[in-house]
């Protein structure tokens, strides 16, 4: 069944693990632990959002109406679709379909790029309007007290999220290059799985960011 049953060493097995099963178990647990810390990181930011929204709900309401809903909605659909393609890529490599996995990973990376381009256009628009954080705020359309705090929270949360998109995209590019070099098969696909998990987390964060920033 697997090469770990024989005396021939499994090339993917690190020397400090007895079996590939133990290694896979530890690697997956480590990934979920890391994802847990990511949840805590974003929970802190969501909490900051909640506090300022509580104090300045009128400004938050008005400012959210000045975000580009269509850009946010398009990005939501793009990210959800990329979550589908990365899940399908994992499903494909589990069945040894290397070529299909590569195509699906490439589609995911394209979605990530599309997300960043749309986000960049949105950011550019905000820079031009002066809808900026803190003392740089000079947006004439929303003057309620606390509006600058909305944009502080907006740029912090979406900026950290966009950073995660860049990191996730880089990981997927690296995994795609390894898929193309034939490193993975139905008997070894853990890196594809973990890269996919990270990408799903990026989607998870946006699932909460979208309604909280665009739809309040």
């Amino acid at each position, binding site marked *: 069944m697997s090469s770990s049953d024989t005396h021939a060493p499994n090339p993917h097995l690190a020397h400090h693990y007895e079996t590939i099963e133990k290694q896979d*178990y530890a690697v997956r647990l480590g990934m979920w632990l890391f994802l847990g*810390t990511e*949840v805590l990181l974003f*929970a802190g930011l969501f909490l900051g959002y909640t*506090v300022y929204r509580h104090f300045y709900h009128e400004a938050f309401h008005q400012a959210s109406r000045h975000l580009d809903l269509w850009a946010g909605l398009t990005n939501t659909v793009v990210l959800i679709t990329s979550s589908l393609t990365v899940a399908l890529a994992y*499903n494909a490599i*589990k069945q040894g379909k290397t070529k299909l996995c590569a195509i699906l990973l490439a589609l995911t990376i394209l979605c990530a790029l599309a997300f960043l381009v749309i986000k960049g256009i949105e950011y550019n628009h905000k820079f031009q309007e002066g809808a900026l954080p803190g003392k740089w705020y000079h947006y004439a359309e929303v003057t309620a007290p606390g509006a600058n705090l909305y944009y502080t929270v907006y740029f912090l949360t979406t900026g950290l999220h966009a950073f995660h998109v860049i990191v996730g995209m880089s990981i997927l590019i690296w995994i795609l290059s390894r898929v193309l070099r034939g490193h993975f098969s139905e008997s070894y696909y853990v890196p594809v799985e973990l890269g996919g998990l990270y990408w799903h987390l990026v989607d*998870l964060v946006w699932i*909460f960011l979208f309604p909280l920033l665009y739809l*309040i």
Partner: protein
Amino acid sequence: MAHEATDTHPSKDAHHGHGVGRYFLIWALLLVGTATTVITGRMDLGAANIFIALLIASVKATLVVLFFMHMTEAPGANRLVFVVSLVFSIVLMIGVFGDLWTRNPMTLPTGASTFDAPER
């Protein structure tokens, strides 16, 4: 060491995987959730708005975690570390909400208008 003993091990599906249809079904449900949250978000439902938005987001997030991230197949330890992070996020929020809801108006920052402030 026996393979049969690792019942919850994700590699049990290694050689057949899931039907592709299930992934597309989850994707469709996520899109329906997105459309719903946009529609309800644009309606004026007062205080219910935020709860509906968070409810839909939580349902969408649960679908992603359970099926796209395969938590249904993950061993107990992996579920535990992730769920514990959610539990402690909620503990953090309860503590801070308790502060916000019980504040004396004099302690509010300048220009703040809280939901329950009578004058606005």
